[in-house]
C-alpha cells in the first residue's frame, strides 16, 4: 500500500541508512543507592531494528526512559541527530521524532481508537484550542489533514473495525496495536517499543512482528525494542545489545549474541 505517512522528501541534513542516529556513551543512572544503569554505551543506526534484551531488572526500560528524556542520567552523554546532550528532555525527544509505546498499555481507555491515535498528532497541530472547539475554517481543514494521516495508519495496522470502539473494551493485543498506531501518528524517526508483545498469544505476536517489520521496511522508521521473547528478538532485529544488572554484557548480531557465554550465563544463571 502507499503509505506516505512518514518519510516524505528527505530534509537537508537527513540521515543516510547506516549512519549513527542515536548514541549513548557511558551512561549511568541511579535512584538513591540503586544503580540501575552503569556506564553503558551503544548506538542505534538509521534504518535498523535494534533490540535491547536482558533478564528482569537489567535496566532495559530505564534505558528507554533515558533515551526519551524521562530519566536524566547522572553521568554520560546522549547524542541524537548529531547533537550531544548530557540529558534528553521529553519535549525535545517528541518534537525531534522519538516516538514510543509503553510496557503497560497507556491509552485513554474511554476514548475511541480513532481519537487515541489522533492524540498522537497533537504536536503537529497549529490551530489553537478555541479555533478547534468552534471548528474555525483553518482548524477544520487542519483536522481533515490529520484525520487523513490517522486513517492511513488505521488502514496500515488493519484496525478499521475498531475505529470507533472505546479502547477500554478492546482485547489486550488490539490495545497494543492502537498504542503502536498512536506512536506512528507522531511520524517518528526513532520508535521505542517497550515489550510490544508482552502478554500476547502466538497469533497476535505474529501479527505484531509483521507490523514492526512493515513499519521499518515501508516507512523507513528506525526501531529500538525491548522484548522477552527470544524467538521474536532473533528473527526481527538487526543488532542486539544485552544488559544485565545495569551493565552491557554483549552487543552484536543476533547470532553473535546467542553464542556469547556471558549472555548464556546471565539468562541461565551461574554459581557466583
Amino acid at each position, binding site marked *: *500500500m*502507499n503509505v506516505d505517512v512518514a518519510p516524505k522528501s528527505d530534509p537537508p541534513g537527513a540521515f543516510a541508512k547506516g549512519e549513527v542516529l542515536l548514541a549513548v556513551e557511558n551512561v549511568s543512572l541511579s535512584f538513591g543507592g540503586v544503580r540501575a544503569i552503569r556506564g553503558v554505551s551503544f548506538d542505534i543506526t538509521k534504518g535498523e531494528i535494534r533490540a535491547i534484551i536482558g533478564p528482569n531488572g537489567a535496566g532495559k526500560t530505564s534505558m528507554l526512559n533515558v533515551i526519551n528524556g524521562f530519566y536524566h542520567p547522572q553521568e554520560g552523554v546522549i547524542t541524537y541527530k548529531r547533537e550531544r546532550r548530557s540529558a534528553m528532555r521529553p519535549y525535545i525527544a517528541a518534537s525531534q521524532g522519538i516516538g514510543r509505546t509503553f510496557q503497560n498499555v497507556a491509552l485513554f481507555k474511554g476514548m475511541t481508537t480513532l481519537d487515541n491515535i489522533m492524540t498522537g498528532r497533537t504536536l503537529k497541530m497549529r490551530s489553537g484550542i478555541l479555533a478547534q472547539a468552534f471548528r474555525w475554517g483553518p482548524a477544520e481543514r487542519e483536522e481533515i489533514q490529520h*484525520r*487523513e494521516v490517522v*486513517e*492511513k495508519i*488505521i*488502514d*496500515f495496522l*488493519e484496525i*478499521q*473495525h475498531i*475505529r*470507533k470502539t472505546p479502547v477500554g473494551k478492546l482485547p489486550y493485543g488490539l490495545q497494543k496495536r492502537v498504542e503502536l498506531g498512536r506512536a506512528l501518528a507522531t511520524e517518528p524517526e526513532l520508535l521505542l517499543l517497550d515489550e510490544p508483545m508482552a502478554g500476547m498469544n502466538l497469533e497476535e505476536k505474529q501479527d505484531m512482528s509483521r507490523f514492526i517489520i*512493515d513499519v521499518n521496511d*515501508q516507512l523507513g522508521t528506525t526501531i529500538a525494542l525491548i522484548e522477552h521473547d527470544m524467538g521474536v528478538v532473533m528473527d526481527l532485529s538487526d543488532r542486539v545489545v544485552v544488559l544485565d544488572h545495569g551493565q552491557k554484557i554483549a552487543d552484536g548480531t543476533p547470532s553473535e549474541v546467542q553464542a556469547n557465554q556471558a549472555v548464556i550465563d546471565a539468562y541461565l544463571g551461574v554459581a557466583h
Partner: protein
Amino acid sequence: MQESMSVRLADGAADTFPKLLLRNAERIAERPAYRFKDLGIWQTWSWREVRDQVRDFSIALDALGLKRGDRIAIVGSNRPRLYWTFLAAQCLGATPVPVYADSVADELAYVLDHAEVTIAVAEDQEQVDKLLSISDRVPRLTHIIYDDERGLAKYDHTRLHAFSEMLLFGAKQVGIKTETTERTRDDWWRGQIAAGNGRDISVMLYTSGTTGRSKGVMLSAQGCINAAIDTVTFDKLDESDVVVAYLPLAWVGDHYLNFAQSLVAGFCVACPESPETAPGDLREIGPTFYFAPPRVFESLLTRVMIRIEDASPLKRRMFHHYIAVAKRWGEKILNQESVPFTARLSYALGNLLVYAPLKNVLGFSNIRVAYTAGEAIGPELFSFYRSLGMNLKQLYGQTEAFLYVTAQPNGQIRADTVGPPTPNVSIRIADNGEVLYKSPGQFVGYFKEPEKTAETMTSDGFVKTGDAGFFDPQGHLKIIDRANDVGKLGDGALFAPKYLENKLKFFPNIKEAVAFGPGRPFATAILNIDLTAVANWAEKNDIIYASYQELAAHPLVYQMVRRNVEAVNRILAAEPAMAAAQIKRFLILHKELDADDGELTRTQKVRRSFIAERYAPLIEALYDGSTHRRIETQVTFEDGRKGAISGDITISEAETFPTTPPTATFKEAAE
C-alpha cells in the same frame, strides 16, 4: 419504469452483462453504481465511471493475452474492482471463475487447475501469496493481478501486476487507433461486447461441495439475466435501491443478488471496508434489499439479547414489554390483517421507542425486502424480525438454478415453508420425494463433467435438487432434508436428521448439531456450544474456563444443554411421525466444527458422513453405553499447518418422553 425496462430487456437488446453495463451507463449514467469505504470515507462510482474502469481494465487484460473462451479466476472479498473484473472478462468473452477467499491452498489449486485458469485477479498480498504457493500445480496460470498493493512492492513483478497499473495502461490506450483501421481501442472494445451473445458462459461457480469434490457450474448469460429480470420484477427493485455486498463473492447468492440484480435493476452495490467492519458499514449505508443466512440473523439476535441483559432495568423492561407487543401484533400489521386500534397505537409507540432504534442499530432501517435461505430458520427467530416490521421472506434456491427456485410473495409468509415457485419456474416432486425443477437461469452443465451433468438431469430436462420436500395445501414448498439423508431407525421409524438438528440449533446455546440414527436403535447427537452465548452465561455464573474445549466439557454446561435436548424431545413427543426419533444420548464435542478441517462446507453446512467417519469412536461410544471416551483429533490451521488436540469426552443421557397428543403449550411453541 420497472415494466418498461423489463420489456426493453425482453426484446433481446441486452443479453449479456456488459451490454447491460452499457445500457446503465447511458440510461442512468450519473446514478451511483458502486460504493467502497476507503480510509474511512465512502467512495462512489457512477455507472458511467464504472463503464470507463471496466473498459480500461478489459483493454489491459487483452494486452495480457486474455482471449474469448479463456477463464480468469477472482479470489478475494467484496471489492468494486473484483466485481468489475467479472464485467471486464465478460466484455472480452472470457469466463470469470470466482473462488472463495478463505479457501485453503489445496482447494484453490483444485479449482484453478480444474477450470484451466490463465489469469487470476487477487484481492491482496494474502491471496497473492496463496496463488504463488500453488503456482507449480497450476502451470496454465500465467499472470496474477492484485488490487490492494500493500506489502507487494518488493515482489518479483515479471508475472505480477497491480490493478491500478492495469487501469492506467488501459486508459492510455483508449483513444489510440489501431494501425490498420480508423477504429480506436474504445470502438474495438464496444465491438468485443457486441460480439458476445446470450449463449456465452457468463460465469462459472464452483459448488460448495456438500458431497465430494466441488463442481464447476456453467451459467449462460441469457439465463442469468432472465432469472434476474424475473426476481427484480417480483420484488420491484429499481435504481433507487442499495445493497451491502458482504456475502462470499464465489457464492451463487452474491453473484445473483448483488451482481446480476444490480446490473438488471441498476441499483447500487456498497462494498464494506473489510469483512470485520461489515456490521458498522451496514448501519451507515442502510440497505433497502438485504440477504442473510439464518445464522446471521441468529447471531444478531443473540448479540442484541446479550446487550439488553446488560442494559439498565428500565430499558430492559421497556424492551421486553414492546417486544411482547410486537410478537402479538407486529406480524399481523405487516400482513395487513385487521388489528384493533389500541394495538396499533401500542405498536406505534413501540416502534418509536424500541423497534426503530433497534433496526437502526442493526442497519435495517431502510429495508424493503429481506431474504433468508440456505438452512431452516427457527420460527421464533423468523417472527422476531418480521414482528419488528421488517419484510423478511424465505427463498429456496441452488447454484444450478442460478439461485431462485421458490420465494415467498408479500403477504404469504410462513416460517416453515419456502414459498411457491418463482415466476417461470416449474417444480415437480419425484416418487422418492425429491424436488425437481426447470428454471430460466438453469445451468448449462458442469464444466468438463458431462456424466455428472447427466446424473443431475432427468430425461425430460428437469434438474434434481437432491432435497426431499412436498407441497402444502397452499401450494408452498416445504423442504424436510437432503433426499439421501432421510433414513429409518432400526425399528423402522422415520429419521430426518436435519429436522432434529434444526430443532436443537434453535436454542441459542447450541451452535451446531449433528444427529445420528439410521439403522440404530435410537437417535443420538454430537453438539457444538455457541461460544458467545455460553461464555456470557459462564461469566454471569462465575464459571472460569480457558478455552472452548474446557467450557464445552464443564458439567454445568452439560446440564444446561441436557435441558435443551430434553425440551426438543418433548416437542418431538408431540409429533407422532417424529416421536420415535427422540435423542437418547448426546455429547458436546471438544472442538468447533470447522470448514478448514473439512467438517463443514465453505458455506458452513455440516458434512455428516465425513464427521461420522472422523469421530467414529465417539459415535460408537454413543451407542455402547460408555460414559467417557478419549479422542485425539487432527486440526488444520488456515495456513495449512496441522496440529492435534485431544480430549476426554463425556457422554450424557437425555430423558425421552412417551408420545403425547399436542397440548396447548406445544401448539403455541409450534406457531
